[in-house]
């Protein structure tokens, strides 16, 4: 009985509000949590001029933009635009875009989306 009343009430509310009902917000797409290792940049190598050096295989191209996946505060992989300098022995010097307090998500990247929740399996780079 109560359920019917609730239904009726919600139907009335819906009818009353239907003139200016906003289109319902679409649901968030499925972004499955991924198990990935991360690399903390706080202790990685720096060049003489203070630039951060990261493994070249962490660099991705997001629709043609060079960048890396940085682990956000909410534990998500977020795209970060970078400027790449010299590359040597699988390592690349980053001229701009990283500050050194970030953690990079490590490959593989096929399933990683901008915003994918990351379950950290391992943290590299910390002494």
């Amino acid at each position, binding site marked *: 009985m109560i359920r019917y009343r609730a239904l009726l009430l919600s139907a009335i509310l819906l009818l009353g509000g239907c003139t*200016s*009902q906003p289109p319902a917000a679409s649901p968030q797409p499925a972004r499955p949590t991924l198990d990935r290792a991360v690399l903390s940049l706080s202790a990685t190598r720096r060049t003489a001029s203070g630039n951060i050096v990261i493994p070249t295989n962490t660099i991705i191209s997001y*629709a*043609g933009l060079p960048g890396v996946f940085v682990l956000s505060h909410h534990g998500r992989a977020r795209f970060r*635009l970078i400027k790449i300098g*010299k590359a040597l022995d699988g390592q690349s010097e980053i001229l701009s875009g990283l500050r050194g307090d970030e953690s990079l998500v490590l490959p593989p990247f096929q399933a990683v*989306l901008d*915003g994918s929740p990351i379950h950290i399996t391992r943290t590299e780079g910390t002494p």
Partner: protein
Amino acid sequence: MTERPDANARLNIAGRLTRYFIDSKLTVLILLTALLAGLLALHLTPRTENPQIVVPAANIIIAKPGATPREVKNLVVDPLQAILHGMRGVHHIYGMALDSEGIVTVRFDVGQNRINSLVRLYNKIMSNYNRMPPGTLRPIIQPLDVNQVPIVTITLSSSQLNQVTLRAIGIDVLHHLRRAPGTSRSYVIGGQRRRINITLHPALMRRYNVTLVDIQRVVEATNIDIPSGEFINANHEATIHAGGMLRSAREIGSIVVSLYNHEPVYLRDVATVTDGGGSIRNVHFIGFGRAYSGLRPRNLELPAVTLCLAKKAGTNAVTVANGILSRLKMLEGTVIPPSVHVDVTRNDGQRADSAVNLLIRHLFIAIVTVVALLIIFLGWRAAAIVTITIPVILLVTLGVDYVAGQTINRITLFALILSLGLLVDDSIVVVENIFRHYAERGVDRIQAAVRAVNEIGRPTNLATLAVILAFLPMLSVTGMMGPYMAPIPKNVPVAMLTSLFVAYTVAPWAARLWLKGHHGPESLATRILRRGYERAMRALLSRRLLRWGFLVTIILLLAGAMALPAWRIVNFKMLPRNNNNSFDISVRTPAGSTLEDTDRVVEEIGDVVRQNPYVTTYQLAAGGVGAINFSGLLRGQTLKAGPTVGEVQVELVRKSERAISSIDIVRALRPAIAEIAHRNDAMVKIEQHPPGPPVRATVMAEVFGPHYRKLEQIGNALRYGLFAHTRHLVGVDSSVPHRSWQYTIAVNRRQAALDGVTPAQVAQTLKGFLAGINDGTVHIAHAKEPVPIRFRFPIADRMGPQDLNKIFLTNPEGREIPLSTIATVVRHPAPRPIFQKDGREVVYVTAGMSEGSPVYPGIAMWQYLKHHAVEGVQLRQSFLQDPSSLHYAIRWSGDMRLTLNVFRDLGSAFGVAIILIYMILVGYYRSFMIPFIVMIAIPLTLVGVLPGHALMHQFFTATSMIGVIALAGVVVRNSLLLIDFILEYERAGHSRIEAVVQAGSVRLRPIILTAFAIMLGTAVMIVDPVFGGLAISLIFGTLASTVLTLFVIPLGYFAYTSFTHRPAKGAQPG
């Protein structure tokens, strides 16, 4: 028509009009024509959200390579300002001297003809161009035009397609959309242009002994195609092209650039040739908020391009936008690949349409309320008569708008809602009087109606004229506020005149047909009211003490109301904030920040914005700004570019569909965004679209003075001192930039000469090394934008001054000279731009407001600076006049100055209106004193207006002031009719006391009725954030004034006549 011998002789205009139209077939025709014309106009008139304000303006950009800001100021900007100085119609000239470049912005007066102004500007500059110093490049004149502001923006985004492809798709789509009728300027933001990048490897170049100059020469010589005549043979002609255009990266790579050991050296041997985007100068993303209702992409933010389309002047934003969007629908799936995500991120057409439709709905509600009121007071027959006049009058007004080339916008509709309360009055008065006459037994219906109209014709004409006169002076409001508010003084008088005409023609015609002439019993409520009024009036008239008590009470009430602003219970503001569907967040990272830095800050802001439940989409831009809007155009947003510039444009759920206003959304976001700004040392401003004309900044101090260095110091002191510590100021900024560094490569001329290298060669080589050189374009048949060939060195080779050692120059003898032997690198602070306003050097300190009115922080800062010196200098302050440039002085500008200007203009309009009303009243009564009594009603409105604002917790705004002006017309009408009846009764031989009491008692019903009509008619406006003030003024002002005038006016007249008539009776006025 009934013929009466004495008819014409005794009738006034009103009576004559009525007599002609009361049984004429023409009335029906007029009625139908007016309705049809009005409906057609409603459909055809272009719709805009706000009135179109024409402010012609242009940026003049002149480059003088190599000149410092000081040189640019002296040699380019100053002469240019001198050239422009004498031009007619110029409001302000803003100068900006940068490194190697000068920008002068010319703002013409509001309302100047746009094309005329720009042609004159162009002519003036071109005919005086010889006065520019040698070495300056051709000026670029960039007109800033409202019609450049895109009305529709469409964001295409994709996680797969690269920047070049996405942009190419964007250009292609734009090409199709441009065919929609009525579109004008259109362009694409974001993505990357296709380029052929020739990345030179210095080491390889040295090995093969090739220089940049060599390569450039060869490429230039190869990339050529000349129509070289034609072959004629066998009656056929065929044209010949000679040369070989470069058509692909491969072709360029296989150019032979030199010989090395008798072997050809190909370009690909010394350089990597790629077809692609090249270095990234700006990035553009779209993000999807919690309220997004489309198909959500799986990534949080997608790289995007935004297509911007503006409309032609005079076209209807609604139809142009619909045309564009219907075309867009056809392109999806064909020109736009399925992997591209399409979002309409701005649709001003729809915005204007929904704004107009909402107000039309409000207008309808207002009409229904007024009709309901009429039915209650007059009975349904009389109410029906008045009701049919309402749409006729409103539609005729809209028709006049259409013919006059006006648009239908929010202000027009507010004007109509405002006039709704006023325009029923004439018909009510007419119908009421006809009703009274019909109540007599055995009257001829036509004659009685004519007589009834004739009777009230003169005071009704006068009252309508008074209302019109109250509004007309508002046309003289200066600045951008003038054209913004203009629909009110344009529409209300038209509506009033139409209502007068309709009241004399349609109303009696309908009354003759429908009105029954028998009085029902007086309703209980009105009887109680009338009895109560009569009793109170008699008591007041008979007891002197009571009269004095009443006078004192009124004076106290008035004083109390006036004290409210003084006690800051009612605050002044030009216009309150508006509830919008979008807002912008502009970002400036510290000087020297990279694009990546800016992008990171912008993205952090995006993260905050995304969490808000009302955000549908947001676009991020770094390295440039997003699609420009009107207020951004006037803020100089078009000139902003570079790696430190960023912007976030946020779209919200439509305001009709959300419970909370954009003002509150911004307030909720502010702390988190301020925290990001603070953490990154960035300048972040939230720009909400102003409800009225835009200003450069809400609070702005212009500091003038003799020495620019000192000005900069004062500017910084104000920014970090006074402004930072004043309450409610946010986003404090100044035009003094942060310190940043610049490297100069100083060529040792002697050594260079000995080595046979010229400084020009050094500069050229360096430019190629650091910035890259564009040289020609490749010829790709399907490319819709030119594809330049760009030479540059790998970014890893040019990180700092130490990399300059890698550069070698070749002297004429073929010897290689390392740059380091002939030049030294010097680091020094970057020269700072110099700003000028109207030819004087200026430093701007600006701020926004978190809440409240800018007037009060302004006053606080004024007081502070009056007593305190800044940087050891006592600043002279001014608001309106130009400060002298011999002393350090500050001129307060921005919203606050606009507020002052607007209140000054509206105040004088009010003054003029009062004088005009007084003059016509003097003409009517042939007395100097009686008009004063009539006009006592005007100040009495304040008793309602100011407490009304306090009660509703609203600012007293420019629209409130318009309400006060409108009230002057409205309340004068009531007192006019009161006095008229008193005089009438006195003429009929009643005693003065009886005349005063009876007039009030008879006029009580129509006065209360018209007052209610105004109050209920405008009540729908009260929720509007901008025009709420107008509604409050009208509702509370009418309430207070009606109640008080019913007593004050008769008493005032009584007191006046008792005083003047004491010695002798005679001399009846009128």
